[in-house]
């Protein structure tokens, strides 16, 4: 049987130092809940850098391609219009006039594609139930979540107290 231990801190720097000590002992910090991003925690507890930016780039590429294909079809292939004698027979020659919309549509797709991916990956959508272990973690408390075997429970709690945790809660996993 393993136990889930929640160690609460009231200072982000104390939590960070605490996490370092816990990790040094060979234990794994499952997650950290905080009211704002604690800088430096990702490397300590092994949170990998998100690949959202790569997604964003791909969405942008898609948007740009769609905009150019669309405008070429509308303005060059399907219904060429003579507007002030501007070139209406060739995408490359008409390109300067298409740049603003290409840019806007690229940004549009990048931003919204990234935002939707962000919500889906976080599993945060309208009306979803909050899963933070303690409501105070969105105010001024920082919680470290550790999963340990029941036999090691007392030892872990002692270690966490030593690192400056102000409150320790546990529940069966």
């Amino acid at each position, binding site marked *: 049987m393993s136990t889930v231990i929640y160690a609460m801190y009231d*200072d982000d720097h104390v939590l960070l130092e605490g996490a370092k000590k816990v990790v040094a002992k060979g234990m794994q910090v499952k997650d950290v809940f905080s*009211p704002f991003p604690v800088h430096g*925690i990702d490397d300590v507890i092994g949170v990998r850098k998100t690949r959202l930016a790569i997604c964003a780039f791909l969405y942008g590429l898609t948007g740009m391609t769609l905009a150019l294909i*669309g405008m070429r079809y509308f*303005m060059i292939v399907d219904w060429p219009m003579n507007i002030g004698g501007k070139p209406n027979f060739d995408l490359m020659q008409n390109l300067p*006039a298409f740049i603003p919309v290409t840019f806007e549509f690229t940004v*549009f797709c990048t*931003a919204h594609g990234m*935002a939707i991916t962000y919500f889906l990956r976080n599993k945060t959508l309208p009306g979803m139930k909050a899963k933070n272990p303690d409501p105070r973690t969105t105010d001024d408390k920082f919680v470290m979540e550790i999963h340990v075997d029941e036999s090691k429970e007392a030892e872990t709690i002692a270690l966490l107290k030593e690192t400056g945790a102000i409150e320790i809660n546990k529940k069966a996993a």
Partner: protein
Amino acid sequence: MHHVEADIREPLILGNKTYHQITEDVCAPVEGKAGKMWYMVFSLAALLALWGVGCIFYTVGVGIGVWGLNKTVDWAWDITNFVWWVGIGHAGTLISAVLLLFRQRWRMAINRSAEAMTIFAVIMAALFPLLHMGRIWMAYWVLPLPNQFGSLWVNFNSPLLWDVFAISTYFSVSLVFWYIGLIPDFATIRDRAVKPAAKKAYSIMAFGWTGSAKHWNRFEEVSLVLAGLATPLVFSVHSIVSMDFATSVIPGWHTTIFPPYFVAGAVFSGFAMVCTLMLVMRKVLHLEDYILVKHIEYMNIIIMLTGSMVGVAYLSELFISWYSGVEYEGYAFMNRATGWYWWSYAAMMTCNVVSPQLMWVKKWRRNLTFTFILSIVVNIGMWFERFVIIVTSIHRDYVPSSWNLFHPTFVDMGLFLGTIGIFFVLYLLYARVFPVLALNEVKTILRTTGESQLKQLRAGEHITVAEGSKH
């Protein structure tokens, strides 16, 4: 972790604040009851808004013949108001995106409200081209949709269509950027809410935010990328708005400096509006510890800088109209300054070129009353700038027999004042239900910019951020 802070840095958060105190201070307006002042201002705004809505219905029902437009002056207050509102809508994203990229910590106190202002201002702006269509129910024709008119597409060579794409992209991206930042703050309010209805509402709006390390990791990446995207977007939007004029062949509009000149003007008026709103808000919502004189001073410096850029643009425009040797250009500008509409040109020059120069005096730019008056003067000036550009350029046609003036009707005035009313109704509602300060972002700068924390840092003591902390 040793942090070094230069001695000349002033604190950005006053008083002996802790993380919890920040939550308390920012949530107070949301959780408490509205004061008498709020109801008074809200009633006034609602009254104006009602007049505006009435005028909107009248315009849609009867047609835009109820405006003062005539055959010569076929763009007037409508487009003036449109450009004015879009311009105001520029400061929010500039503060949240550009200042984020430059790592300006003072943005944290004002970005939320500035962005709210942007969103409401862009909504007001979008109303005018929609109403100008006359048959607003045909508004979907601006989109490239398959159709039965011989498959007639929208014209992608036209700046008016670029504008459709620019404004809708700007609006929706700003909205998403704003909302993503709001989610952790909604979670804070959700976790504190006592009343079941409020708890339910904020739970829905908080999207189940937990604040786990992985979520924050993604949050920071999204904020950075969106800021990177929004930065060129801000500059593109008003550039494209300016092309509505610059790509035409009307003397006074056909100017290559329009894009940068419009962007500078937009930032100028946007910051002025932020100043107007912040000065009232810090007082009414008791945020004097977070929105400091220093913040106002920073904004005033930006107003001074962009005001000077606008001034240079006005003068180069004037010079080029003479230097180009084009008779029509020369006349257009001569007529602006000395013709029938000289007073609007004079108002524009005084409010936009002369008044921001007063900000060179440190004592004045740190004076709140002075700033408040000046911020309103700037926005009056920027309204006149658009009026001057639009109306004075077209009211003297090439053929003197078509010369005309513009007389606004009560509907024109009702729409303009009405949008100001609707804007303030939205903004006042926002101030009651949304966290007006990005509270979770403010917490990240407490350690380095809080007044008592800075004192501890400089004294080499341990920095306390928690209440009754033993550490």
